[in-house]
C-alpha cells in the first residue's frame, strides 16, 4: 500500500505538485493521468525518491520512504520508464538480472531468475538471453524493461508511460500482456500515462491530475459516468459514454440465445411466431453459420397482409466477423451490433459455438448511469 499525505513538490516559486493526498491499495493498479506538465510524473518519481518531496509524507506499507536508504528503497520498487534504459553493453540476461546482481545474488541464481522472467513475459529464454539491447525491437525492449523491474520480485511497480513510445498495435499487445501478468502477480502498481484509453483498459482506479492537484480519484467507470467538473468532462471527451462501455465485459451481460440447427431452418420458417426474436443458425458441430431474417419486403408484405404465414430466410454470417468473446468489452459488442445492423451479437467460445448473446437494450440500460 502506498499512501501520500499532503505531499508537495516546489521548484523555487513554482509548485509542481500541490499538497496531494492519495492511497493506492495493495494489488491495485492506480493510473495517474492528466495533461502534459500536470505533475503526474513528478508525483510518481517521489515514491522511489528520484525526486524528493518538498513537504508531506509518502509511506509504503506504513514506512516513510524518506527514512529508508535510497538505494535500498529503489531496489525494493520496480521501475519502468518510457526509454527503458537497458544497458547497451550488457546482454538481455545481464540486464534483467542487474538488481539481483546489485543485491549480491550469485551468478547461477541470477541467470536462472532471468530465464524465469523471460518465460514469464513470453520471450523464449534460449533465443533471447544472450541478445544485446540493440538487437531488440521497441516492444521487446519494453518487455525486457518490465522483466528487469520484476527481477527482485518487488511488491511495488512504478511505471512511467511505459508503452508511450511503442506503436499503437504493439501497445495494445503490451497492455494485454501487462494485464495478464498483473492478474498473476498482483503487484501494487502506480502507472503514469496521458492516454485515456490505456487508463481505462488497465486501471483499477484513475487519478486525474491538473496543475499539481487531484481533480478526481475514482474507478474509470465512475470518471466516465460522472465527471466531477467541466475539466474532467473535457478531458474524457464527448464520447465518454462509448468509452465507458470498455469498462464492462461481455461475460457479465450474456443472455440466452435462441438457436436452431441448419436442418431445421425450413421447418421453423413455416411455423407460427409472434415476436421477432433473433434466431441464430448453427451448422455442423454447432458452429455459428447464420441468422434468420423475416421476409418483409414487397412480396413478403403482400403475403403478410393476405394472412399468409410468416416466412424466414437464413443470412450467412462469418462467426469471426460478428461474434464477440466473453472477455471482450461491451464497447466491442456495441461496435459489432452497429456494424451488422442487428439487435443482438452472438457470444462465441473458441470453437465459434454460441454461448449466448448480448442485446442492445442491455447496452442502453448500462448507459443510463451516464450523467
Amino acid at each position, binding site marked *: 500500500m502506498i499512501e501520500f499525505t499532503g505531499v508537495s513538490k516546489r521548484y523555487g516559486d513554482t509548485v509542481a505538485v500541490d499538497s496531494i493526498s492519495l492511497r493506492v491499495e495493495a494489488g491495485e493498479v492506480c493510473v495517474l493521468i492528466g495533461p502534459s506538465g500536470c505533475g503526474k510524473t513528478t508525483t510518481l518519481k517521489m515514491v*522511489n525518491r*528520484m525526486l524528493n518531496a518538498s513537504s508531506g509524507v509518502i509511506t509504503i506499507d506504513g514506512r516513510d520512504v524518506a527514512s529508508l536508504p535510497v*538505494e*535500498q*528503497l*529503489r*531496489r525494493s520498487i520496480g*521501475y519502468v*520508464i518510457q*526509454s*527503458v*534504459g*537497458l*544497458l*547497451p*553493453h550488457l546482454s538481455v540476461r545481464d540486464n534483467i538480472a*542487474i*538488481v539481483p546482481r*546489485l543485491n549480491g545474488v550469485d551468478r547461477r541464481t541470477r541467470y536462472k531468475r532471468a530465464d524465469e522472467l523471460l518465460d514469464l513475459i513470453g520471450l523464449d529464454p534460449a533465443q533471447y538471453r544472450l541478445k*544485446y*539491447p*540493440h538487437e531488440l525491437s521497441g516492444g521487446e525492449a519494453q518487455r525486457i524493461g518490465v522483466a*528487469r*523491474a520484476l527481477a527482485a520480485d518487488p511488491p511495488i511497480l512504478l511505471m512511467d508511460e511505459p508503452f508511450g513510445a511503442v506503436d499503437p498495435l504493439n501497445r495494445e499487445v503490451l497492455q494485454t500482456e501487462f494485464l495478464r501478468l498483473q492478474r498473476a502477480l498482483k503487484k501494487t502498481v502506480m502507472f503514469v500515462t496521458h492516454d485515456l484509453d490505456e487508463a481505462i483498459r488497465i486501471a483499477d482506479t484513475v487519478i486525474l491530475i491538473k496543475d499539481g492537484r487531484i481533480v478526481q480519484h475514482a474507478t474509470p467507470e465512475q470518471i466516465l459516468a460522472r465527471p466531477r467538473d467541466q475539466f474532467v468532462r473535457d478531458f474524457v471527451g464527448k464520447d465518454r459514454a462509448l468509452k465507458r462501455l470498455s469498462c464492462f465485459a461481455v461475460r457479465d451481460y450474456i443472455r440466452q440465445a435462441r438457436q436452431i440447427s441448419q436442418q431445421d431452418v425450413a421447418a421453423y420458417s413455416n411455423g407460427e411466431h409472434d415476436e421477432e426474436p433473433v434466431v441464430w443458425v448453427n451448422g455442423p458441430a454447432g458452429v455459428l453459420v447464420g441468422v434468420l431474417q423475416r421476409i418483409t419486403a414487397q412480396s413478403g408484405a403482400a403475403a403478410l397482409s393476405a394472412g399468409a404465414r410468416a416466412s424466414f430466410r437464413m443470412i450467412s454470417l462469418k462467426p469471426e466477423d460478428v461474434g464477440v468473446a466473453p472477455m471482450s468489452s461491451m464497447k466491442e459488442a456495441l461496435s459489432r451490433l452497429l456494424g451488422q445492423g442487428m439487435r443482438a451479437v452472438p457470444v462465441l467460445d473458441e470453437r465459434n459455438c454460441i454461448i449466448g448473446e448480448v442485446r442492445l437494450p442491455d447496452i442502453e440500460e448500462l448507459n443510463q448511469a451516464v450523467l
Partner: protein
Amino acid sequence: MKRHIVPPLLFGLALVVLLNADLLEVVLRQLFPAVREVMYTRIPLIDLFREHVVMVLVSSAIATALGVSLGVCVTRPPGRDFLTVVQGLSSLAQTFPPVAVLALAVPAVGFGFRPTIIALVVYSVLPILNNTIAGMEAIPRELTDASRGIGMTPLQILFFSELPLSARVIAAGVRTSVIINVGTATIGAVVGAGGLGVVIVAGLVRDNIAFVVSGAAAAAVLALSLDWLFGRLETLFFSPRARVAR
C-alpha cells in the same frame, strides 16, 4: 584473418633488424656508404629501446590514471563547476612545449627519468581527459536515470554504466596519447633519461645521419606497432558482439 598477420610480421622483422647490432650495421652500411662510423657503440640500441618503452608506459599509465580520474571528477555534480577550468588548463598544458616543461621540472626534481615523465604526462593528459569528458557527456540522460531508478549507488552507476559506455572513447584518447608519448619521449635524452633520443641527439651533435636514422626508425616502428596493437585490442573488446549501438 590473413590480413592481421601482415603488420605484426612486418613490425617484428623491423625490430629484429633494428635491435640486432650485426644486422643493423649491415643495413646502415648499405644505406649510408659515406658515413665512416654507422653504429652508436656506447649503449646498445636494444637497451635504449627498452628505456624508451618503460618511459612511454609509465608516463601513459600516469596520464591515463590522471586524465580519467580528472574527467570523472569534473563530470560529477560537485565537480561540474571545475569542468571549464580543467579543460582550459589541460589545453594550455598541450600548448606548452615539452622541452620547456623539462626545463622547469629539472630544478624541482633533478635530472633523469623523473622530469621526463612529468613533461610527458603534462603533454599527453589532454586527449585522455578530453575523451573521458566527451564520453561521459555523451551518455544519454535516460540511461543514468534508469540506473539510478533501479537502485545503483553513484559508484555503481560509474562502474556499471558510465565507464563501460565511454570506454571506447576513452581508449581512443589513450591510444592518441601513447603515440604522442613515443615521439615526445625522445627529448628525455637531453636531461639524461636515456631512451632512443640518446642516439638521435648524438647523431645531431656529431652530424652523423646514420645515428639519427637508427634512433628515429626505432621510435617510428615502436609507435606504429603500438598503434596497431591498440587497434587490435579495440576490435577485440568493442566489436562486433558488444558493440554499443544507439
